[in-house]
């Protein structure tokens, strides 16, 4: 054997079991960094610069205008910002807590127990994801406003002295909590599905009840999944505008995002201050991520044995009707009620409901809003555009997220950690602000990309990179490394191994990741507001146009249509993938 060959062999052995690209150790990560640079680093950098200067980045004459900290100082002394920060943190922390409890409970019920009608609970439990926050806020204002909320109308009719008021911090927290439970559910359900059941069986045999086993063994072992899901829910809630706007304004409760919105609505818009507020949100998120890392460091949560097994179902006996009732109650609260509200608005000529009798008066209902919706020439165009942009974002975004997740998880190339952090950053920045950042960063892109559906797809890919990556990382972790190594030993290269071994094994996770990306893209508003044109208009923007134009019935009809469409698409995808397995 030649000297060179033996030297390469020796160094490969020294590097251990991870894959290394001997001839190109720098090319691939640099390529990924380039993509991330365009998608993430450049827009965010402009945002950071904007927060430190006093001029509109687009019209500034100097390349580097004089830096100033005045915006940050302003934020520190501004009492509204303080109140808004307190409100945002309270609502999002408790909301995240509620999400974790709800999502975890559901994951446990669906994956681990013999509760009847699990399939319904599982798929319906994801439906809150379909509803954009603005629509959710509106639906809950319809249901829970103190004077004429539909819930109050019904309660009055039943003669009960109770009243609900969703125009409150509590109301917003509850809406946050139940709407983001699906995120936690997704993370924890997959962790549960892959846990070695003998860990729980050992606890049962040694005398612990089902409940004690869940509290002492199952949940502690799922700590990473719980923390990841909860953190993601928290960060996303921080950036939501629609719900606090509709439910918080009547209660005079400011939130960081509504404050942000008011900054941007000023004439001229106060970009720099808005950028500073966004940096505040990024800081809070970074703190959350750091806390999560600290909590999980040094403890092992390896639960995947590397062999396949059927997760054993716990027989709850009579308790399973209790869990079924809980599941149905959740569905009623989170899916049925708001959809009912939307349906009522969509089909009712106008929303004046003086008493319960009027609610059921058939003469008050018609198809008028749907007719108006589809008579609008932009409607069909927006549907088509949304499907295309959503599909492109799902496919290319999914592929990119997979490439990054694989590189970070499974290889030993340089720069993995920076790549991981950079790809996670977008999650902290609210859609409103990232939309402006994208505009500034990409309006000058050569090649006429600006103003097309392609740029919308790019915006969504960048926006949801962290979400998709997290989802994919979880599936990748589950694949035992030896399954890949066996492929290399047989002589197949890295790409073939990925294509023939890794992808088929992660396919369920990959498909659900792409489906998530599709759903998020369809309903995403903030990042597309500045980039769309009449030709590339998408459903979420059109919905907002209807809403801001006062056509509430048409907005509701559109929401109903969008939800039905999403439900259909997601349903077909999961039906198809179930058959494959």
């Amino acid at each position, binding site marked *: 054997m030649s000297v060179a060959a033996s030297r390469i062999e020796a160094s490969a052995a020294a590097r251990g079991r991870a894959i290394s690209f001997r001839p190109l150790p720098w090319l691939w990560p640099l390529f990924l960094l380039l993509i991330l640079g365009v998608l993430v680093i450049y827009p965010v950098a402009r945002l950071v610069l904007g927060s430190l200067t006093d001029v509109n980045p687009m019209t500034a004459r100097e390349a580097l205008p004089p830096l100033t900290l005045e915006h940050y100082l302003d934020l520190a002394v501004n009492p509204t910002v303080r109140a808004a920060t307190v409100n945002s943190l309270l609502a999002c922390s408790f909301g995240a807590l509620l999400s974790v409890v709800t999502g975890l409970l559901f994951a446990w019920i669906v994956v681990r127990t013999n509760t009847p009608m699990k399939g319904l609970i599982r798929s319906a439990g994801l439906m809150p994801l379909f509803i954009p926050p603005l629509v959710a806020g509106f639906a809950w204002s319809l249901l829970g406003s103190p004077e004429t909320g539909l819930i109050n109308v019904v309660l009055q009719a039943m003669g009960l002295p109770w009243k609900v008021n969703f125009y409150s911090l509590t109301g917003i927290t509850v809406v946050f909590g139940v709407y983001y439970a699906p995120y936690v559910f997704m993370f924890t359900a997959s962790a549960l599905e892959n846990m*070695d059941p*003998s860990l729980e*069986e050992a606890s049962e*045999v*040694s*005398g*612990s009840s089902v409940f004690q086993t869940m509290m002492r063994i199952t949940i502690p072992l799922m700590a990473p999944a719980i923390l990841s899901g909860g953190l993601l829910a928290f960060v996303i809630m921080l950036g939501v505008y629609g719900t606090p706007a509709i439910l918080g304004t009547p209660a005079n409760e400011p939130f960081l995002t509504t404050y942000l919105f008011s900054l941007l609505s000023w004439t001229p818009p106060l970009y720099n201050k808005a950028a500073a507020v966004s940096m505040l949100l990024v800081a809070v998120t970074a703190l959350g991520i750091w806390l999560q890392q600290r909590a999980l460091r040094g403890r*092992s*949560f*390896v639960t995947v044995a590397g062999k396949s097994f059927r997760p054993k179902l716990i027989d709850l006996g009579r308790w399973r009707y209790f869990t079924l009732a809980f599941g149905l109650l959740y569905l009623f609260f989170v899916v049925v009620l708001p959809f009912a509200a939307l349906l009522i608005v969509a089909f009712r000529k106008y929303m004046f409901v003086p008493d319960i009798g009027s609610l059921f008066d058939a003469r008050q209902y018609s198809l008028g809003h749907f007719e108006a919706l589809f008579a609008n020439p932009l409607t069909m165009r927006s549907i088509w555009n949304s499907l295309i942009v959503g599909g492109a974002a799902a496919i290319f975004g999914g592929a990119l997220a997979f490439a990054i997740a694989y590189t970070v998880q499974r290889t030993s190339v340089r720069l993995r950690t920076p790549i991981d952090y950079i790809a996670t950053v977008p999650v902290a920045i609210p859609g409103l602000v990232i939309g402006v950042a994208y505009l500034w960063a990409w309006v000058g892109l050569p090649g006429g990309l600006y103003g097309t559906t392609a740029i919308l797809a790019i915006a969504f890919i960048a926006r949801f990179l962290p979400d998709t990556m997290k989802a994919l990382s979880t599936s990748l972790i589950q694949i035992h490394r030896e399954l890949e190594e066996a492929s290399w030993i047989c002589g197949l290269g890295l790409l073939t191994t990925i294509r023939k071994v890794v992808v088929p094994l992660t396919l369920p996770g990959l498909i659900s990741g792409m489906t998530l990306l599709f759903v998020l893209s369809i309903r995403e508003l903030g990042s597309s507001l500045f980039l769309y044109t009449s030709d590339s208009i998408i459903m979420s923007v059109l919905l907002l146009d209807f809403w801001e134009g006062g056509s509430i019935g048409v907005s509701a009809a559109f929401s109903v249509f969008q939800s039905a469409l999403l439900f259909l698409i997601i349903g077909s995808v999961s039906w198809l993938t179930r058959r494959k397995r």
Partner: protein
Amino acid sequence: MTAELAVSRLNKTFLAGRPAIDDVSFVATAGEIVVLLGPSGCGKTTTMRSVAGLETPTSGQIRIGDDIVSDPAGGIFVRPQKRNVGMVFQSYAVWPHMTVAENVRYPLLNRRLPRAEMERRVAGALAIVSLTEYAGRSATALSGGQMQRVALARSLVYQPRLLLLDEPLSNLDAKLRLRLRDELRRIIKDAGVTALYVTHDQSEAVAVADRIGVMRDGRLIQLATPTELYTSPSSLFVAEFTGATNLISGRIIASDAGAARVAIAGGQELASRVPQRIAAGTEVTVAVRPENLRLSAGSAETGPAGHWNRVAGMVREARFQGVQTAYTVTSGETVWEINEYGSVPRHAGGDEVIVWVPRDGCWAYAEASTSAQAH
């Protein structure tokens, strides 16, 4: 206080098809170690999990001590928490988020003992498995053998009346396995607890068991002491599974209730034992353990004392295996495998030798083996 385990007419079917457990009955007396031995898929693990309460049988009764814990016909099913059995899992199921001591203490948390008593028992259990110094260590910082001991300590700390062990040694390397199986038996006997042990390795079964139950396709084929199993296997499967690798086809010349004369290839004749009388002319397979055969130089006339068949042959291959040498000897069309203990081989390839085949070590069965040599 340890208890007797009585399993009667146990059945378990998962889906349409062959039942996983097919009419299995046995009794393990108090303090006895019974090993269920068989190839994968034979139903041994399902049987044990049914005793634990982790599987629900379709029919049949399981009684631990005076308590009937499972009887579908009578509507009885006691949940695993209430059966007071200990179980060591194949993957040990040691909880990674706790220390060794916390793992062992866990079963006592529910049993409402005073703090001092709990600690005493934990210390005692750790001492039994020789892990006292590891008490404060995280469960993930342990080797496989240590994890297995933690699992054992955990299952004994609450003094169950029955101990179940599901292939506890199969994840360990060979040397560790050899060392630990004796220790395992010692620990179980010291604790005086009735044990049901599952494995696919016959030498492990022999080292650990008081009695061994050989299972195949859901049925219990033979339940006997290790000696009995080896010296009087009741069927060809048992003989083969426990290591009788010489399987020679033949035909009965004459037989009575205990012994027979069998005609084999090349006009040779073997005196052999039979489990019951077999009609003359019946095709049989004769099973012989390689370690029961003796070799001597080709000119020897007298063999060892007792009934021995004398077969002349030539050494085709001699394989040195450290503590023993394995010989392949051809005699006419018949090929014999012989293991001779001792680290110095006494014969070499090409030698003319006599194979002494003991009548009491030959068992003829009226079954065909798939790996038998041609008649």
